[in-house]
């Protein structure tokens, strides 16, 4: 449990020396409980106090790192049940499963396809995060071969899946330097798996055959053995059990500070689904409801696009809207006679106007100004969308060189900027478009004569 200000106060010197820059020890304790200051600011706290406070300050869900280098997976450290309370911190890792029963050709093809998979959204590229190699054959030699085959072709992090400590040991001898996740310790093999995790300093997944009691027993055993870089699998696979169990795990960790389940959760939607669509929907549920790692069986580009998009959406800071990279965007294949429209870099504003232009069949140039992610009217009233900024963007993007005309269309909501913009862009004719994106098709039909 997190300590209250009063509990913390007991460990402080109670001298009100003010060296922490707070008027009293109690004030400091209160601030510390609220997470607004570091314990180190008090020079006189006892060692006993430090230990107690350090334990209480531990994040309720441990941060786990899988892999190494730039592409390592970081999961855990979540602090809320709902994304509107505070941002979800570490986006769900999307990992694709390869089985050691797949042919060498299939493995090579899949590793290549998944490894280079990347989609552009809001001006950035997003991809998949790793591979899980499954010892489906039960044969240690085949497993080693598959691990080797995948490892030699990718620098993405790996999850090694086998319950056979012998097979796992051989694979780890080969790839431990990449810090793969060992999956999994169960009640039958936990002693050997703990040895492997310790020997190779790799994170370990713990799987319960059913229920949180067994899971807690296993993680407590691991922690007692000094293995604390854990990922948990409560063993639930279907829609309803998964939603309930993963919700309970998140609540236990956050609200009860129950450490035995304070670890990221790994999930397997493919095992709870009969069809591609079902796996897509279940994987999406895990992205939203408390899965930290999602292992995908039926990889397809469409599935990956949907999951990457959902993850991007749900893991954004609710206080900070998704922003487009400012710049000049082409809608369709605009020509030099096509319309030039101005908008802000709030993603939804961009999508609305881009969607309408495209839907109405108007290839266009869209000048996206940096308004720090605010919509047209909000940005205007906050002084972040003015004539100067629009003019700077139009000039900076060399729009004049892309088109044969000099007409630029302002969003109707900021018609008031027309005069100033005429001064800033003397070579251009400033047109005032409709207030709503929805009306842009009709507006262009009526007013665009080029």
């Amino acid at each position, binding site marked *: 449990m997190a300590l209250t200000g009063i509990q913390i106060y007991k460990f402080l010197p109670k001298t009100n020396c003010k060296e922490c820059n707070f008027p009293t020890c109690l004030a400091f304790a209160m601030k510390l409980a609220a997470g607004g200051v570091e314990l180190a600011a008090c020079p006189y706290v006892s060692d006993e106090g430090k230990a107690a406070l350090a334990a209480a300050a531990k994040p309720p869900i441990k941060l786990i790192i899988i892999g190494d280098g730039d592409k390592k997976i970081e999961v855990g450290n979540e602090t809320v049940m709902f994304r509107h309370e505070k941002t979800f911190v570490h986006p769900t890792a999307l990992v694709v499963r390869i089985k050691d029963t797949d042919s060498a050709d299939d493995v090579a093809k899949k590793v290549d396809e998944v490894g280079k998979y*990347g989609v552009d959204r809001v001006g950035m590229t997003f991809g998949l995060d790793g591979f899980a190699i499954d010892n489906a054959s039960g044969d240690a030699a085949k497993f080693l071969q598959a691990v080797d085959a995948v490892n030699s072709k990718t620098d993405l992090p790996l999850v090694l899946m086998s319950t056979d400590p012998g097979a796992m040991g051989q694979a780890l001898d080969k790839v431990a330097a990449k810090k793969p996740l060992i999956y999994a310790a169960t009640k039958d093999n936990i002693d050997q798996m703990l040895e492997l995790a310790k020997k190779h300093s790799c994170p370990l997944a713990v799987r319960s055959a059913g229920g949180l009691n067994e899971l807690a*027993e296993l993680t407590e055993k691991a922690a007692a053995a000094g293995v604390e870089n854990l990922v948990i699998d409560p063993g639930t696979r279907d829609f309803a059990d998964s939603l309930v169990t993963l919700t309970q795990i998140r609540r236990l960790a956050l609200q009860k500070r129950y450490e035995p389940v304070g670890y990221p959760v790994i999930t397997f939607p493919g095992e709870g689904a009969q069809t591609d669509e*079902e796996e897509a929907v279940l994987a999406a*549920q895990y992205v939203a409801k408390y899965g930290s790692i999602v292992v995908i069986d039926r990889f*397809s*580009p469409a599935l990956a696009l949907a999951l990457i998009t959902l993850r*991007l959406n749900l893991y954004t800071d609710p206080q900070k809207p998704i922003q487009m990279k400012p710049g000049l965007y082409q809608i369709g294949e605009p020509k030099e006679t096509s319309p030039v429209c101005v908008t802000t870099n709030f993603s939804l504003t961009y999508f609305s106007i881009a969607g309408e232009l495209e839907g109405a069949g108007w290839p266009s140039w869209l000048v996206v100004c940096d308004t720090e992610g605010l919509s047209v009217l909000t940005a205007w009233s906050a002084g972040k969308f003015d004539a100067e900024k629009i003019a700077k963007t139009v000039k900076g993007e060399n729009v004049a060189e892309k088109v044969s005309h000099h007409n630029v269309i302002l969003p109707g909501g900021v018609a008031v900027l027309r005069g100033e913009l005429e001064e800033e862009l003397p070579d251009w004719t400033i047109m005032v478009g409709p207030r709503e994106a929805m009306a842009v098709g009709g507006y262009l039909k009526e007013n665009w004569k080029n």
Partner: protein
Amino acid sequence: MPEVEIPVEKWTGQVKTVKLGGGGRKEVVIGGQTTLPFLTFEGTIPNPPKIAIEVQDKEPSWPAPLLSAWGDAVKDTANWAKKAAELGADLICLKLLSAHPEGGNTGAAEAKAAVEKVLSAVDLPLIIIGPGVAEKDNEVLTAASEAAKGQRVVLGNCEEKNYRTIGAVCISDGHVAIAKTPLDINLCKQLNIMLSDLGVQNDSIIMDPDTGALGYGIEYGYSINERLRLAALGGDAMTSFPIINQVGSEVWRQKEARVGEGVPDEWGSHEERAVIWEEVTATSVINAGCDLVVMCHPKAIENVKATIDKLMGK
């Protein structure tokens, strides 16, 4: 073995129960939960989320995956509604799009005819949505209301500028009003209060707090649903109406669902992508608290229906 003590929330509120249909028509009940979506270990869910299938009053200008899935049925509103019923719709959501000033500008007589057509084609409860232009909504929804008198349909959308007219019509003809607000929990609550003050009963309001499709603002819809539901379970009466989301029309406006050619290879096959887009959007808003999703693609509808069953432990 340690005995893990499961934390259980003690909710004090309950989502209001709204009955739709009746008067010779099938009856569908939504709302009534005393817990968050599908968390049956701490409350009850008497009525699982329902699916309404979108039907329009004119032949739709839809992208290929929808047109090929529906075939000729969409050429006639009555056939369309019948096929929707065969596909397992819980309700039919009739959209009077031809009344839009830029889409035909038809009036009360045409609206009445379209509603009567659907009412006689199927025995499911009906949701009737106007073209989204306040004046036209008032005109066609008033006509629709009369045509459906006694059959307890849902009329929408009541927005801030026209809630009085549509709210009054709902009161006089015994229908249910949709309170529609643009992605803002405070505006949502405010409109619910205004409708209540007007005299619309608690069992006759459902709220559409709006949502974007996956990739187009679903995070707003998702969080507003969650916030509304948490507020309702916390005991706030004016946020405790059942939630409706127009998933289908939001999804099928977007490029990922609409466009088959000239997109990156990473987007995968058009139909697969479009169906996943609609079902992921639908199940996400349902997991966040939506009680009634309006959808378009038969395959996505089938999958979402199956998902709801599974989440209810069936």
